[in-house]
């Protein structure tokens, strides 16, 4: 890769991580004021896991995610306006206001869903990989899921199927140490979740999930391996979520043991900014990126606020290809 292209790519990684962080910070604050209905699971602290993974993919590669859904599409390159509008329940939202915070899925960047039933995305990703393989497109399907999801049967069934059929799938397990209030050690008898992959004779990597370059390198290798027909790969990103399981619940459900200070000392954005500056990137340029992103995020919120809510009849579209009937009492 030429130095110029590497620089562009590095800046893009920084840009996407900034986009996620600033999007999440803003979302959390307007959620606190009641502007976003429902639960909000933020991705702050985990940016390197998502961005490193997605930067390693082709634009047309597929991606499936989970309830902690905001970071994944941003990492894959989605525009912010429809994402923010979705959080506010607007018609212009990426899911037309039908999905909300747990389902920020933008199919235009290769997403096939962000599903809030823990573990349920894994079989879907295996199937997308099967479809890609059968159609000979050379695409891979990447699935993000948490440490908690590795105890779900669906995750195991999906991984087994992908392994036995040698499907081009990448299973990125974002181990952020907790599934809601449950420390991973109380839920899983192995120290490294990548050990789960051994039962499926699956190639696996364990990476520093705070280091976007490390994640990118692992997923690049995984993608090459999967694309070449050798089978799926499991990538465990060791990471940390800063906010509570879901924000603004009044009390922190996460039984942290002081480790949060160590993790925050290795903040993925700070780590990466330092690395870029050490490599000679001008700090002023990074400042500019940060303020451009601040504008982008503010613009997304303005767009969302200015957008209309969906009409009642839109609750009856997309059940099937054709709308289902709306009862007369809702027509008024």
């Amino acid at each position, binding site marked *: 890769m030429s130095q110029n292209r590497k620089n562009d790519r590095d800046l893009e990684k920084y840009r996407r991580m900034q986009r996620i962080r600033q999007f999440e910070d803003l979302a959390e604050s307007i959620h606190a004021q009641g502007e976003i209905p429902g639960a909000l699971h933020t991705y702050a602290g985990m940016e390197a896991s998502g961005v490193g993974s997605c930067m390693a993919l082709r634009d047309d590669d*597929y991606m*499936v995610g989970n309830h902690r859904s905001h970071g994944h599409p941003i990492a894959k390159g989605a525009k912010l306006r429809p994402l923010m509008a979705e959080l506010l329940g607007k018609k212009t*939202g*990426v*899911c*037309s*206001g*039908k*999905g909300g915070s747990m*389902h920020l*899925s*933008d*199919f235009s960047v290769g997403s*096939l*869903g962000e*599903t809030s*039933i823990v573990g*349920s995305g*894994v*079989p*879907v*990703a*295996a*199937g*997308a*990989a*099967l*479809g*890609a393989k*059968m*159609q000979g497109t050379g*695409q891979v*399907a990447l699935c993000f899921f948490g440490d908690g999801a590795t105890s779900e*049967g*669906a995750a195991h*069934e*999906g991984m*087994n*199927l992908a392994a*036995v*059929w040698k499907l081009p799938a990448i299973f990125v397990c974002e181990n952020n140490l907790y599934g809601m209030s449950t420390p991973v050690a109380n839920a899983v008898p192995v120290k490294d979740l990548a050990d789960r992959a051994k039962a499926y004779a699956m190639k696996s990597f364990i990476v520093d999930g705070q280091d976007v370059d490390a994640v990118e390198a692992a997923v690049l290798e995984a993608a090459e391996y999967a694309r070449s027909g050798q089978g799926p790969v499991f990538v465990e990103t060791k990471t940390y979520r800063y906010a509570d399981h879901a924000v603004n619940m009044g009390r922190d459900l996460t039984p942290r043991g002081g480790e949060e200070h160590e993790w925050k000392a290795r903040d993925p954005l700070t780590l990466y900014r330092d690395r870029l500056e050490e490599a000679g990137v001008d700090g002023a340029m990074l400042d500019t990126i940060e303020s451009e992103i601040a504008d982008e995020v503010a613009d997304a919120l303005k767009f969302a606020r200015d957008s209309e809510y969906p009409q009642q009849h839109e609750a009856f*579209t*997309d*059940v*099937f*290809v054709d709308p*289902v009937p709306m009862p007369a009492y809702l027509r008024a």
Partner: protein
Amino acid sequence: MAKTTFLDAIRQAQEEELERDEKVFMMGEDIVCNVFGTTTDFAEKFGLERVRDTPISENGFIGAGAGAAMVGMRPIIDATISSFLFPAMDQIVSIIAKSRYIYGGQAKLPLVIRSCMFYGNSNAAQHSDRPYAMFMNVPGLKIIAPSSAYDMKGMLKAAIRDDDPVLCFEDSTCWMNKSELPDDPDFLIPLGKGDIKKEGNDISIIAVAGAVPIALKAAAKLEEEGISIEVVDPRTLVPLDREIICNSVRKTGRAITVDPAHQTCSAASEISATIVENVFDALKGPVLRVTTPDTHLPFSPDIEKPLYPNVDRICAAARQLMDARQTVSA
């Protein structure tokens, strides 16, 4: 023209659609070895890429069907016996039924999940389910339950070409039913259209799946007694052809719903409620349900067989209705 069985109608429908569209493929447990005769010679003809034996992993491969469908394939998933849909409830309900909706129409899931209802033959409670009604309570799933070879072929072909997920419930008591089948490769019966299997004037019997042939037998017997029966087969349960049902009952003024499922929240219950809500003014008596009572299905044949709807129970309900008096439940 030679007559063909219901099972062979399934085979023909799949074979024709596999031939027509290379995006169509099949997966399921032990389909290569062709346990029931619905995939005869498919592996040789279409290859093991398109006719895939799966691990015993319903939640895995049914979910994978969703993923494959979202990226442009058209899977036919053979779940063998309908009881094996339960381990895949998560993928069917949370992924397959809802993905189009929660993503605001971004997803398309053209897939068919076939399963047979294997009751009435001492397979005991865990293998004898008729669970379509459970899925009727989940928006986003089209549900078909054909009762003849003719309907089976035309509806399964339509289901495979449909852009929405379709659950196809195949009543094993119909497996050997025979019809003359059109060999037009585009023979399709649109989903959501019921069929009058027999016209009549006194009572409408709305029967589901394997209850249709039984209702027809009961109708013949009742005709001898001078009671004229109309037999309505909804064929598709979602979307339900409420119009054909209501029109029939408006004409006859009496209705019996017959359904091999357990009574509570059965298809028969939904059909009965539809009738009562829409054509109450035309009713000359209560709407009766002939279903399977709310107990499990025992292994021992002598106590299993009488639990299902049969000719005698339908005739008794019909006679009861023809009595002008208000009646107790059939």
